[in-house]
């Protein structure tokens, strides 16, 4: 009886010790992960900022006036006249048909 009680107690003691240590390690892990999360969040924000700047840059390069100028002056292109455009209507059955 007494012996069995002692064994139980020492097992519980060991379990308690294990629990206590795991609390410490998981707390440590949690903090490490949080730091990681935080730095990822910073990266995400940095990327978002960059995305905004890239969008801006793209739309600045792609302004119709700039494209028009390059197309006309550098590439010697011109807007086709109405006579040079043919509209083709795609019928529901996939057939194409010339517009008058």
């Amino acid at each position, binding site marked *: 009886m007494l012996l069995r009680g002692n064994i139980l107690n020492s097992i519980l003691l060991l379990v308690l010790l294990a629990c206590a240590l795991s609390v410490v390690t998981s707390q440590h892990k*949690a903090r490490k992960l949080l730091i990681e999360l935080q730095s990822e969040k910073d990266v995400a924000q940095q990327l978002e900022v960059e995305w905004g700047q890239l969008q801006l840059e793209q739309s600045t390069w792609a302004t119709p006036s700039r494209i028009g100028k390059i197309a006309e002056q550098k590439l010697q292109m011109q807007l086709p006249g109405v006579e040079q455009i043919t509209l083709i209507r795609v019928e529901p059955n996939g057939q194409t048909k010339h517009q008058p």
Partner: protein
Amino acid sequence: MNYAASAHQDITAKLPGWRAAVLFGVLLIGFAGLLGRGVYLQGINDDFLQKKGDARYSRVVEVSAHRGMISDRNGEPLAVSTPVESVWASPSDVEADEGKIRKLAKILGMESNKVRQRLFNSKRDFVYLKRQLPPAQIEKVVSLNIPGVLLQREYRRYYPTGEQTSQILGFTGKDDNGQEGLELALQDLLAGEPGSKRVIKDRRGHIVEDIGSLRVPKHGNDVELSIDSNIQYLAYRELKDAVIKHKAKSGSVVVLDPRSGEVLALANYPSFNPNNRSKVSVQSIRNRAITDVFEPGSTMKPFTVAAAVEVGIIDANTTVDTENGVFAIGRRKIHDLHPEATMTVAQIIQKSSNVGAAKIALSLEPEILWNALAESGFGASTGSEFPGEAAGKLRDVKTWRPIEQATISYGHGISVNLLQLARAYTIFANNGELKPISLLKLDKPVAGRKVFSDRTTNSIRAMLETVAHEGGTAPLAQVTGYRVAGKTGTSHKLENGKYVKRYIASFVGFVPASDPRLVIAVMLDEPSNGQHYGGQVAGPIFSKIAGTALHMMKVPNDAPLDNNHLVSNDLMGREI
């Protein structure tokens, strides 16, 4: 040995019993005191220590929120906030030699004397050296590594489309709050609210635990406008060319989708560059198409005629005695530019007869005419919710005298803004239905209001088509391959209550007439290079914008490609 024994004897002999009791009592009181203090600090007045403890590791950090993006209907960015750094200094901490200061001044593009003065002769703890620098310069400043010279992150708004959209979008101030235009109107939607949260930081400044939000940051919402930036560019380019060519004071263009009431383009010239507002005049900031009113002139005639057709007193073929171009009401005389003895109602629209329009107006009860105009949206807001929108003026019918009833029929004695005028024409383009104007992209159609019957609008539409034909006032508004319906307007400007020889030229129309997809209104203020008629000045702008826009939208042709200058009689005979 003897000594030790006697010492022991001494001690035991001299200890009285009460001493232990007193000592015990004192200790007990001491413990009670400690216990009391402990209970007090832990249980009753516990926040003091809690605060002291928190102050060691807990910090409140700001969580920034950015202002929402404004984009066009296809998602192209029109206004974007992006962080920029400002360089500031804490003068008392600055340590820099002459060489470094000279380098810093060079990077910032300032005189080194000025930089030195800011750094050393200032009693403040915080001086801006330069605000909102581009990233490349910031890197150079950082690489100098001067103690006491620091960076601060701020948001700055950029407008990639620049002057093309500046009056619609408006702009924001230094603190990124809307000051003009849609930036102001949509402030609540766009603005972000920075939040804050409490965290636990370790010795190295890492956040190790997130205790909780004090205030959740609210990022600004992105807003999609109804504007199509391609059509907007087109409209702005053609308008700018025309204003310069005709030496006009200013000009505006509005392009609407008649089916939904969405504004596809709204351009004004002169304009300004919102990215660099150092030399901006107040005049160029105004969104004239919405905030300025003018007397529309002949572009009002279709509404007069529609009111009369609706009640059934006339139709397109009714002949009106146009009195050889001069018609007297009391002491006032109304003149026609192209005098005729008689005209059909269709010809009154086609040739823009003032006498004819006045006679039709006078044959109506004033209330009926007033109702038709009010129902068409004149004298009331368009629903655009643009800041500073001018509703225009439609005088109360009770104050109308016959001369006013006559002049209003051809657009004098009434004031409108260009957006309002364009919106009113959606009635003819959209089978009599009038929708509220929207500057934002609509997900689902909004309910409109039926103003005129299908029969009336079909008849008016056919009349408006003849305007761009040979014999009409605006053959130059013709678009190759598409049928055009529209009306010219040329009105004298009012100055100090008198009409002067300066003009406002306008054209409002829609294409393709068989199934309208675009309503375009063009207005030029004081064209003064020889030409001033709406058909000469505004018509070609309409034609250029409409032709290119229809191709961009891949709208099928509804007329043969050799339709320019069609013989009008042919069509009139068939359709009216």
